[in-house]
Each structure stands twice: as C-alpha cells, then as structure tokens.
C-alpha cells in the first residue's frame, strides 16, 4: 500500500525528466481518462530506421499517471516502433515497481495507451491496446 507513493514515483511526478514539447516530431498523440480528467500527450522523433531518437510527454493528472508517463518515455528512447508495439501493461508495472488495483491501473496505463495508439496511427486510444 505505502509502496504506491515510493520515492521514485513522487520524484518523477514532481521533477519529470521528459515533460515538455518536441519540435519537430514525427508522431504525436493525446488522450484523457474521462473518469478523473488525467490527460497525456506524447510526441516522438524518429530516425530513418523507425528508431525513437527523442520523446516527450505533457499533460496533467495524478502522480501515478504522470510518473508512469515519465518512466515510460525514458524506457522507449532508443527503441524501435516495433519494440514499442510489443510493450504490455507489465512493462509499465515493472517501471513503477508497484501493485495496482483496477482504478489506479487505468491511471498508470494511460501513457502506454496513448503511446501505442500514436505508434499504430489509430484514430483513438482503446483499452485493448494495454491488455495483458
């Protein structure tokens, strides 16, 4: 329980490394969690081989949603779009290092959902993108 606000999460929430805008960028996508108003926007820059050379996120919301976005961005720089397509919810939970109930899981997975919707070039982010 107390793990939920481990230092790493509070730290990435208060002092995120990858918050901001990336101009120019090759891929951008944004979505919100309608239940709590968490909002995440992700921008990616790619090289000729589809490798992510830089990335940023922006948005607002609870500590879990914002810290997981910062950790997720950190984990994908240098990866290819194909690598990103393979990421699942466990990847985010491993980054956070905590167990989450169903309500907070939605907060944690918002950034991955946004990232994958952008990478797949979808019109909207769907929960099926972050199933097990």
């Amino acid at each position, binding site marked *: *329980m107390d793990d939920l*606000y481990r230092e790493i999460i509070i730290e990435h929430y208060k002092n995120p490394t990858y918050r901001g805008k990336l101009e120019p960028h090759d891929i951008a996508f944004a979505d919100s969690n309608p239940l*709590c108003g968490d909002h995440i926007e992700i921008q990616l820059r790619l090289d000729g081989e589809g490798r992510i050379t830089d990335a940023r996120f922006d948005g607002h*919301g609870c500590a*879990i949603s914002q810290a997981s976005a910062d950790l997720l961005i950190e984990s994908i720089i240098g990866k290819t779009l194909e690598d990103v397509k393979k990421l699942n919810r466990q990847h985010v939970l491993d980054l956070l290092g905590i167990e989450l109930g169903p309500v907070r899981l939605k907060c944690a997975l918002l950034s991955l959902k946004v990232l994958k919707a952008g990478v797949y070039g979808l019109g909207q982010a769907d929960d099926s993108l972050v199933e097990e």
Partner: protein
Amino acid sequence: MNLDVMRVRRDFPVLAREVRPGVPLVYLDSTATSQKPRQVIEAMDRFYRLSNANIHRGVHTLAEEATALYEEARAKIARFINAPSPRQLIYTRNTTEAINLVAYAWGRAFLRPGDRLLLTEMEHHSNLVPWYILAQERGVEIDFVPLTEDGQLDLEAYRRLLERGPKLVAFTHMSNVLGTINPAKEMIALAHQAGAITLLDGAQSVPHFPVDVQDLDVDFLAFSGHKMCGPTGIGILYGKMHLLEAMPPFLGGGDMIRAVHLGSFVPNDVPYKFEAGTPAIAEAIGLGAAVDYLQSVGMSAIAAHEHALTAYALERLEEIPGLHLLGPAAEAKGGVASFTFDGVHPHDVAQVLDRYGIAVRAGHHCAQPLHERFGIPATTRASFYLYTTKEEIDKLVEGLYQVKKLFG
C-alpha cells in the same frame, strides 16, 4: 432532540471494522452511499427468512405477508415526506430511474418541439442526461441556471430564465459537490407562477433534513434509498396525482396492467401502472425500515448534527495551506466539503487518506459541468452523516497534513 452519535454508531456494524489491522474505518463518503444500520439489515434478513414470496395476486399466506410488508413500507415512506397518499409514490431503482421515468413518460407525452426545460449548472448527471436524450429526440430546448462564485444558484438569472416559459424546471435540492441547499420552496413557487411544473432531485436532501412535499408544493420528487440508510436498488418517485394519472406507462410488463389481450392492454392504476415486473421487494421493505430508523433518531436532530459538523469541518479545512474549498459558507450548505489541494491530484489525496482508513471520494462526482464551471477537472470530497464524529474530521485534517508532507 439531541443526537447521541456514539449510540447511533453502535447501530452500524461496518463502522466497527478496521480497514487494515489497527486502522479503523473513517467513513466520509456518505454522499455516494450511506452505511446501513442493523435495523435495516435485519428487516431484509427477516423478510427472506420468514416471508419471502412474490407480491400482489398471490393468495397464499406468504404472498399476503410480502404484499402487506411491501405496501406498508410505501405508506411509511409516504408519511416520511408527508405525501397526501402512498399511491403517489412509485418504487424505482434509484433517483436516476425516477428522473428517467418522468423524462420518458411525462416528457414524451407532453413536450413538443420548441418547448423549453430549465435545469441548473450544479446538477448531477442523472438530472442532465435524461433531459438531453429527450431534447435530442423531441427538439426540446434546455436552459441552465448559472452559479455564483460561491456555488449558489443565481436567483436573478433564474427569474429571467423563467420568462422564457419552460414547461418544466428540474433542479437539485442539495448539490452533491458544493453542498449548497437550494431555496426549493421559493424556486418552486416562482416556477409555478411562470406556468412550469417542477421536479426536485432529493437524492441529497431527503436523507439529511426534513422534506415535506406538500409544504414545498413540488410536482415531482426523486430520491434513492441507499443514501438514506436503506439498501441499493430501491428509490422513489413522488408525483402529484393528476400528473401521474395523465402520464402513460413507463416500462411494460406484468403488474403494470389491468388486462392484457392479444394485441392490446389496459394499464393498471397509479402507482402500479409504473411498476412493471417483480420489484425489489426486500429492498422496499429495507427502505421502510430505514425511514423508521431515521425517524427514531429524528430528522431535525440529524440536520442539526450535520450542520455543526460541517461548520467545524470547514473551519478546520480552511486552516490548511494550499487547500481550496468549493461552495458556500456552512450556513447555506449540508454535510459536504469538496476541495482542491495545490499540486496534488484528488486521486492522490484520496489514495493517501486511504492509508489512514479515511474513505473520501475523488473525481467529478457525476457533476462534470459543475467542475467545468469552476475550471477544475476533479475535486476531493468528504461528506458527513448522522454517524460522523468530530474526531473523524480531526483525523481527516491530520491525514491531509500527511498528504501535504508527502507531496510538499
């Protein structure tokens, strides 16, 4: 009559539990749903153990007992809101279904394209969406009474909007977010002068202070059992008899008919016309027991207890740096304290408080337009009821200082 809160608490089994070993429950989420006293739990248990049968038409002993208990509960609830007759109370699932019933049965029968409805900016989604659906379907226009900065209805604007000639004015008696208690009697009188009928959302008022439908002269009143110490799955729509009689049925099925032939039916009398299918019998009996319970404590005593707690809570919460309360001063509101906290999302506030066993709600509380009005995505809400103590408010304040420390 004074309220002995420690005695009241002994009636609520769940209040004795620990959320985790050594962490007692501090339940500050009664606006979402109240806890249940043993008197209600036992009444439902007794029904299932002794008298369970389907109601109406049955001639065996159990069916007669079940029918009598079900109708006795209706009569008790009718007396509780001072309805002229129990026949004017329709059992629904909850407030939401009661409002939908009016929107569906009254709205579709009596509204024409270009007619207007008047709602307010502080409504719960349950008193917005049924009207939006109706408006889309029937070409009906909707106006909204705006709010003042301190979260009260702008009554000058209300008078002006009434001049547009709405057919119906539907508004909440007490806001589930701001706690604002609206001047219902005055607003209903003004609506009637303007030729409108009125629907009052009593989900937050009927559980917390005396509500008298004849004194208010309200045309429809909707409320839920589960917010007033009763079970989930049961609510009430009260209506004036001439309106209920003029309305076509809502759902079709058994019990709502007097006769059915191949290709035609004759609807039953009010209220059965609106009660299709086997209803929530045990839940209705449970709500009857809840009303008995609330009356044994005394609605005025409950209102006074909550008022004192609210005044105390607002005073303590205002001390916390970075905390911003929504809504009016204690005099104008019921037992609700919604707030934002600088630099901390409401979800995080609620999650950290849960560590200390404190149950509050975080989000838009099914009132998104209200939050948009104040330019915030979500709030944290603590709410109080007859079993809430001053010590619990102290624990909330201590918990909030812990939140501040963690995120500070």
